[in-house]
């Protein structure tokens, strides 16, 4: 049965990727249908109850600048907020919030239900409708068919999901949810390149059975940070502390004793897990010299006693889990409410995607989130947003938007995924971004709001506030650049306090601000009589820009140098096997990765500058076949 009317975009899956995708497409005016297994689990956090962190917080701020939901939902659900790396430079500072799971789901659901152009529908999707090389719609579990111009799949860990606890295992999408087995089987039939990955989660505990007296209290920051550009601390619910404890030698002995029944160490689990988020059994085995590992006790919410012991993700049998939990100071009498587990699931090789997140195999089919081999809510949400944007653009007959590496972490992530693929679940780190100094949390709004506005994602309120801020920054920079101070008019004590010695010549205030030791507040307190009048977020931005200016300019020159290469598109049907002057290895790599641009080709390992030159020469011949050559003159080679 085919249900009319036609949709522009259908999003499958209501996790972090799916909800952002659906919201973005609908905001852009596309008639959008969000189909998910259960409306109750919209915006569900499968694992730890927190949003943000280094690299991830950066993504959240970018999602926010593009009109997404995650930052605002975190502001409404956050029960503890911190700025990480606050003592280090602005480029590596990041916001992190503990979130109340229920409040978070609610915040997302309210937005979905209030979004014009968006329809919600509860069903499991079992099949895609494919015509030729294009996707045309979906078929659900009870045989309903919905058609659309574009389909976004965001099925997370659900495709052929398999949960392990000790030697027992069962099919599931995550604890409490059924797997998507029929859809997984259908996708495998479509011969998309697939693989298996693995992730895990710790047991949950009843907070009333813990002894907090032996743990270290970890309060949130004061003043309380906010996530969204439009956010305000008054939106936050009541705030709670986290707690810290550690594993003991006894814990490690218990774990070692249980390894013979661990699905990880007996070869039952085949999927590859991340190296940076290992299970406690992995930590004990791989870092055997370490006699204790930290554990952070995080509240799951305001309306529940459950807590999340961050640091003991495990798939050991339940009796071992119980024993190891009881060996931890403060957990001696803990009651486990949910066992920890590992889950294996299908993902699709992201090298099969274009930078728009559309699959190469089927036109109109987009993938976002964990299905692409990533891990994390923020990574999923950011991809979902991008896939939703590009699905809507495609339905509207417009060109895709593909953010660049120097524009956004979103651009870094997608480029990493589609050019290099993954060997383990992909998580964002700031060290992945060569333009890290440009890609900051504090300037995500300046980098992306305007693009969001052009795409139709940014509403009037955000736009007005953004423009006001941008103008205020420009005005303040202009004022500091054109305000000069003279040695005669600056009292020696003031100069001493500011730069450590008397001034020998005239200075623009802006030039003083560029010195590492000078702050805008100091200027206002000493020589800048008009200073201290702009809002703190403007002052902060001006100061950061001044401090980073030299570095940013250098990076900009680099971006400029590479621009031509980044812009040069490689034809989809380029026959690499026929190109001379390239080694067999390079030809094979290019044929396998099929880079979309020369810049992407450059980032494939083993592709040398000489190989790029050779490619360029072949491209020129292919492109300029018609122009007659100019006569040869000048020097001989």
């Amino acid at each position: 049965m085919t249900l009319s009317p036609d949709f522009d975009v259908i999003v499958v899956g209501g996790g972090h990727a799916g909800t952002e995708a659906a919201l973005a497409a609908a905001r852009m005016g596309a008639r959008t249908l969000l189909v998910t297994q259960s409306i109750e689990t919209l915006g569900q956090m499968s694992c730890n109850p927190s949003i943000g962190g280094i690299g991830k917080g950066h993504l959240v701020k970018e999602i926010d600048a593009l009109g997404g939901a995650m930052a605002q939902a975190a502001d409404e659900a956050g029960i503890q907020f911190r700025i990480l790396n606050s003592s280090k430079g602005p480029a590596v500072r990041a916001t992190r919030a503990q979130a109340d799971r229920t409040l978070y789901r609610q915040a997302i659901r309210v937005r979905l239900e209030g979004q014009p152009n968006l329809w919600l529908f509860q069903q499991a999707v079992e099949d895609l409708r494919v015509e030729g090389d294009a996707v045309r719609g979906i078929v659900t579990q009870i045989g309903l068919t919905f058609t659309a111009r574009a389909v976004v799949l965001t099925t997370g860990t659900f495709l052929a999901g398999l949960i392990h606890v000790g030697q027992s295992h069962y099919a599931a999408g995550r604890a409490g949810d059924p797997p998507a087995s029929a859809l997984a089987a259908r996708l495998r039939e479509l011969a998309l390149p697939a693989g298996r990955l693995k992730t895990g989660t710790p047991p949950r505990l009843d907070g009333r059975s813990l002894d907090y007296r032996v743990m270290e209290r970890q309060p949130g920051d004061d003043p309380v940070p906010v996530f969204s550009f439009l956010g305000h601390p008054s939106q936050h619910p009541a705030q709670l502390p986290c707690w810290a404890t550690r594993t003991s030698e006894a814990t490690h002995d218990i774990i070692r004793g249980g390894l013979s029944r661990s699905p990880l160490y007996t070869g039952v689990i085949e999927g590859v897990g991340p190296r940076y988020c290992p299970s406690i059994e992995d930590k004990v085995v791989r870092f055997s010299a370490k006699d204790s590992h930290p554990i952070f006790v995080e509240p799951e919410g305001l309306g529940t006693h459950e807590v999340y012991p961050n640091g003991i993700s495990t798939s050991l049998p339940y009796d071992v889990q119980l024993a190891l939990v009881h060996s931890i100071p403060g957990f001696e009498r803990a009651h486990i409410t949910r066992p920890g587990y590992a889950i294996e699931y299908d993902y699709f090789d992201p090298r099969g995607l274009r930078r728009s997140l559309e699959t190469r195999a089927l036109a109109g089919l987009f993938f976002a989130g964990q299905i692409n081999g990533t891990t994390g809510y923020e990574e999923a949400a950011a991809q979902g947003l991008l896939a939703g944007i590009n699905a809507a653009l495609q339905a509207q007959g417009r060109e895709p938007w593909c953010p660049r590496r120097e524009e956004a972490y979103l651009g870094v992530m997608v480029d990493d995924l589609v050019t290099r693929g993954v060997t383990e679940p992909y998580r964002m780190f700031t060290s992945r971004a060569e333009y890290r100094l440009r890609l900051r949390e504090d300037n995500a709004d300046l980098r992306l709001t305007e693009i969001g506005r052009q795409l139709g994602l940014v509403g009037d309120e955000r736009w007005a506030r953004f423009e006001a801020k941008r103008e205020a920054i420009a005005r303040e920079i202009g004022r500091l650049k054109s305000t000069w101070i003279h040695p005669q008019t600056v009292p020696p004590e003031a100069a001493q306090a500011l730069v450590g010695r008397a001034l020998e010549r005239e200075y623009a205030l802006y030039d003083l601000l560029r010195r590492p030791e000078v702050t805008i507040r100091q200027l206002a307190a000493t020589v800048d009589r008009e200073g201290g009048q702009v809002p703190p977020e403007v002052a902060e931005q001006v100061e950061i820009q001044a401090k980073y200016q030299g570095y940013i300019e250098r990076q900009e020159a680099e971006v400029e140098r590479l621009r031509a290469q980044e812009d040069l598109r490689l034809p989809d049907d380029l026959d690499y096997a026929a190109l001379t002057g390239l080694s067999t290895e390079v030809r094979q790599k290019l044929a396998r990765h099929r880079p979309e641009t020369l810049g992407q080709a450059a980032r494939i390992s083993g592709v040398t500058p000489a190989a790029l030159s050779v490619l360029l020469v072949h491209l020129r011949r292919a492109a300029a076949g018609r122009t007659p050559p100019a006569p040869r003159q000048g020097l001989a080679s």
Partner: protein
Amino acid sequence: MANADTIAATATAPGRGGIGVLRVSGPRVPAIAEAMLGACPRPRHATLGDFRDADDRLIDQGLALYFPAPHSYTGEDVLELQGHGGVAVQRLLLARALALGARLAEPGEFTKRAFLAGKLDLAQAEAVADLIDAASAQAARSAARSLEGEFSRRVDALVAGLVEARMYLEATLDFPEEELEGHAASRTRADVAALLGQVRDVERAASAGRLLREGLRVVLAGQPNVGKSSLLNRLAGDEVAIVTALPGTTRDPIRETLSLEGIPLHVTDTAGLRETTDAVERIGVEKAWGALAKADVVLLVLDAREGRRVADRAVLARVPAGVPVVEVHNKIDLGCEAARVPGEEGASAVFVSALTGEGMDDLKRAVLALAGRVPSTEGAFMARERHVRALARARTHLEGAGEPGLGPELVAEELRLAQEALNTITGAFGADDLLGEIFSRFCIGK
């Protein structure tokens, strides 16, 4: 694609009385010409001129040629300076052009620009592609040679130290809440100071000129007992290698530097390339293959009575692409049943007797002809120059990292750029590699 940047390279025919040509192409050429010559020379005329440094001191004198765009090889403004000075003077000329805003050209880049400017027939695309490939392979070989021994060990140590420093620093930036064993806040500062000392040492070693061994690497290779050592002795006019009637005489490679019409030839005699059970001989054979990989010209020695055999084909297959081969049919005094067939796949063939000296002039002529064919822009000179430049860039960034009061993310940026500079010497080391180091050293993740 319009080229905004200006490239420069020194083309030196190996030896050749030390004449080197500095070639510059791109929009900055008129400015560079004016700065170095006092005035831009008349287009398309060989002008005698003084080449001057930044303080207006004379570097060299010679011919200057200026081809304004679009009537030049690359289609851009091109300047050529042909001096008389030796290697040291060529370095000064190149350094001056680079200081004036040019950058070091990639292997084959002049030809690439010519092609992209439409100066070459489109049908030549494949030839151009092959040339770029060959030039870069040649450059890689030259670079590998200049990385031999002590210098290479020092560069490796420098890179290892840099990776270690970055591993700690990046871990503190991306994982501030983790316990990083062995990390102290003061560590990075000490690391940077140590690295700066190291890079200065390596730079000094690179500048000392010990690495600069201009000339053509000629390798004598072939089966045992065909007369390789006898040929070396004949070429050298001296008994430098042991000759016996026993196959498998030569073990260690024997290097001898000769001069052929002013061109320095570094001739290496090698062990006969055969499968062997003798442990010592086997090491010699391995070394022979190593020498072959770094050759500019290979002299494949054959017994004229037997001609090319299957084993010789195997040797030919392992000669690096683009390296010319001369088939030397030796022992013609013993009679030469095999017809005087031309060499395999365009290799030239000569017929000699090491015993009587017959045909030796043919051999010398063949080698000299090839000397002209070896892509001359990518000799040891440019290879060394690239290394020196990369080290200088790395040093500049390490100095930047050592500035007092710099935030850790800015120190990290300088260290990343230092690593990128060194990547051009040692090969790529990217973000994934660094994360790999971090995850294998520290227990990261909750």
